[in-house]
């Protein structure tokens, strides 16, 4: 009965979304306020209905109700109950329900938030959000219903995909999916404002930016968690392989990164209106491209676990929304003309512009590299693989240029920077960059690209730290202790310094990527129990392997005693599991992580005598990549935290204007 209730809630939610689309657009067109309000209220009920369906599916998992097809396909009796959460989105239908649920909640919150400040835009934005939601609900109801029953109930289920049985899977897929679908919110606000002829009037910018920041943060965390999962579970010692699914998450992130910066110029200067509209359209299109690739797109991927045959439906919807957005863009083009131009080519605005171009260039190069194999196969009947060397070679220099702009851009003033100003501002960061280059060369770093990359990171970091230092010093001269002065400086200018904290997190990420990409060491060792081997400063002894049997798998766990430079570090236990039901092996690396480097062991198949090939890596600085996540979240929270408005100068204006007209 509970499952059936959830099943019924889905078509009702679809009808509510359909009503909300029609009511929003017809209501605003015919100027029927009751219909507009009614459509909005209908939208508010969708999360309730989808929560009922979600609870029903969860109940089916918990009670091992294998009469439900999705439960039978994605769980079994041996699955630990904790993995019910993972099993929920382990397949196509469940992940679609998750997407719809998250989107419905975000939509309800967003509409509630924007209604007061954008009364004319809201019906259009709500109608667009409802349209995206109706698409997901339509697919769920007609093609991929997770609560569909089987004609015959099996005694046990097929079990969860073994690659998903990992702690990282509790967070990464839902965060990644939430990030992709959340782009629909700033997109709907922007497009709604455009259709309502408010796109060029900047009233939507504050709320659009806030939602874009939220979406960007979720996308960033999704990417980081995905990289961490790949690093710890896939057992290849890396975290980023330019896999199509990874690329599909990176592309919208790049577009959204450009957008959250570029929108600041519109807020401040009333410029880049067309750019910003293009960026958010590109961001949403790329987010849909991500869902298309993840859901049975034509490009093969190692981990599109929610793959299905309905990818082309997502492609069609992407084409539809892109075409509709571009028509609206051309239709309202006259309202997007900026009243001002660049005052100078050396200013913060021009840095933002250059940054936009670079972000889009990286995004489109990544897109081209991702879909090129499909074109190649269709046109020449030749299967081509575009791998990491292509992306590293083409995107690497552009990403480096972006890091330079990240360091230099915030140091430039708005409107105009003179030559003396630029020299003054960049003197110390450039000196720091040169100093770091010298230090890393003296430490033995010889690869020019690595030296350049670390030097560029130093320039960006020095710019931020120097400004903090000057601000803190100025305050502390007035009698505040250094920690208090620093804290108050940050709190007094939260958006600015929150942005700087985010930039520092990105620099930590970049340093980790440079260290591990250029200076990682990898070797394979064939070892029998009792053998000893060494790599770099590490020596390790293979003590033996033990097997543990489970109903759905067996696990072979190796035991290593590890030392570094004659100092005993402890025991490490990598393991390899084999799942009978899926006929698939899954390895878990043993990783000892420090800020200096990671020592990483992963086993291959064990022979009856206990021997095996072990792949061992020493990956420098990877720790900094994972540490950057919390720093990034902290920066975003600081930037978005509400700040007391001290002197409402602007608030006097309407009163003054009213008085003037009276």
């Amino acid at each position, binding site marked *: 009965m509970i499952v059936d*209730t959830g099943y019924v809630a889905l078509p009702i939610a679809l009808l509510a979304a359909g009503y909300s689309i029609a009511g929003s657009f017809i209501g605003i067109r015919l100027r029927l306020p009751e219909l507009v309000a009614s459509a909005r209220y209908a939208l*508010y009920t969708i999360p309730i209905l989808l929560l009922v369906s979600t609870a029903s599916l969860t109940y089916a998992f918990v009670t091992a109700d294998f009469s439900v097809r999705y439960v039978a396909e994605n769980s079994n009796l041996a699955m630990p109950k904790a993995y019910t959460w993972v099993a929920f989105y382990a397949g196509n239908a469940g992940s679609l329900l998750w997407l719809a649920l998250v989107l419905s909640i975000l939509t309800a919150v967003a509409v509630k938030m924007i209604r007061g400040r954008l009364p004319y835009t809201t019906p259009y934005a709500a109608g667009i959000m409802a349209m995206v939601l109706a698409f997901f609900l339509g697919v769920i109801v007609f093609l991929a219903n997770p609560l569909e029953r089987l004609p015959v109930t099996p005694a046990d289920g097929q079990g969860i995909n073994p690659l998903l049985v990992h702690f990282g899977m509790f967070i990464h897929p839902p965060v990644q999916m939430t990030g992709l679908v959340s782009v629909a919110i700033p997109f709907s606000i922007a497009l709604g404002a455009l259709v309502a002829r408010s796109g060029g009037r900047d009233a939507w910018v504050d709320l659009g930016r806030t939602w874009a920041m939220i979406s960007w943060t979720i996308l960033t965390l999704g990417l980081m968690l995905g990289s961490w999962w790949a690093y710890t579970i896939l057992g290849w010692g890396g975290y980023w392989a330019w896999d199509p699914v990874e690329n599909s998450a990176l592309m919208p992130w790049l577009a959204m990164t450009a957008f959250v910066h570029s929108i600041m110029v519109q807020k401040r200067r009333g410029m880049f209106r067309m750019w910003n509209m293009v960026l958010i359209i590109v961001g949403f299109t790329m987010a849909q491209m991500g869902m298309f690739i993840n859901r049975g797109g034509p490009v093969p991927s190692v981990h599109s676990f929610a793959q299905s045959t309905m990818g082309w439906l997502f492609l069609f919807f992407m084409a539809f929304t892109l075409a509709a957005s571009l028509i609206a863009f051309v239709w309202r083009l006259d309202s997007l003309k900026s009243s001002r131009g660049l005052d100078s080519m050396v200013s913060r605005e021009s840095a933002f512009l250059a940054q936009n171009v670079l972000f889009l260039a990286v995004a489109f190069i990544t897109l081209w590299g991702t879909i090129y194999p499909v074109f190649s196969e269709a046109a020449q009947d030749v299967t081509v693989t575009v791998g990491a060397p292509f992306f590293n070679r083409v995107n690497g220099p552009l990403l480096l240029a972006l890091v330079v702009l990240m360091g230099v851009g915030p140091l430039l003033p708005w409107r105009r920077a003179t030559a003396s100003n630029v020299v003054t501002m960049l003197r110390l960061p450039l000196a720091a960059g040169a100093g770091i280059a010298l230090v890393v060369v003296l430490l033995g770093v010889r690869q020019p690209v690595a030296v350049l990359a670390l030097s560029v990171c130093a320039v960006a970091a020095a710019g931020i730290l120097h400004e903090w230092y000057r601000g803190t010093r100025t*305050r502390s001269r007035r009698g505040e202790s250094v920690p208090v002065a620093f804290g108050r400086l940050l709190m007094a*200018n939260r958006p600015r310094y929150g942005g700087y904290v985010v930039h520092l997190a990105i620099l930590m990420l970049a340093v980790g990527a440079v260290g591990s990409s250029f200076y990682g060491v990898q070797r394979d060792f064939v070892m029998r129990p009792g053998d000893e081997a060494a790599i770099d400063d590490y020596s390790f002894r293979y003590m033996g392997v033990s097997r543990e049997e489970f109903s759905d798998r067996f696990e072979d766990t190796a035991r290593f005693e590890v030392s570094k430079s004659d100092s005993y570090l402890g025991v490490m236990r990598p393991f390899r599991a084999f799942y009978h039901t899926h006929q698939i092996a899954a390895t878990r690396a043993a990783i000892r992580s420090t800020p200096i480097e990671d020592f990483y062991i992963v086993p291959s198949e064990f022979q009856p005598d206990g021997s095996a090939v072990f792949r061992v890596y020493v990956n420098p600085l990877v720790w900094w990549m994972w540490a950057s996540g919390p720093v990034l979240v902290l920066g975003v929270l600081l930037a978005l935290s509400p700040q*007391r408005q001290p002197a409402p100068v602007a608030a006097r204006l309407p009163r003054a204007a009213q008085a003037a007209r009276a």
Partner: protein
Amino acid sequence: MLILAVIVLTLIPTIAILYPFLWGNPSEEGLVDEPSPSEELRRRWEAAVAGLRNTELEHALGNLPQADYEWLRDEYMTEAALVMKALELEQQQEEEMLAAIEAEIGRVREGIIGGAQEPSADAAQ
């Protein structure tokens, strides 16, 4: 039991949809265009004040040399003056608003070099 659940589920959106028609008072919901001319002037005013705050902030931090600071300040003050002219304010009202800008700038300076007041969110972007 299932029928009852279905009825309840159907009633949720039905009541929500009917509410504005039967009991609501949406009045002008969604029908008022937000960007009126006075709103546009308000936004231009806020942008000019935010620019002044930011210029003051950069100067207080030592990021802007005196000549650049004065040039930027003049630019933003001109924009603020143009907005006031468009509003056709009385002399006294103009003076009040200019005094408010000066007070705001003073608060930004205090926020950076120490003091109780904090500059607003716009100043920092």
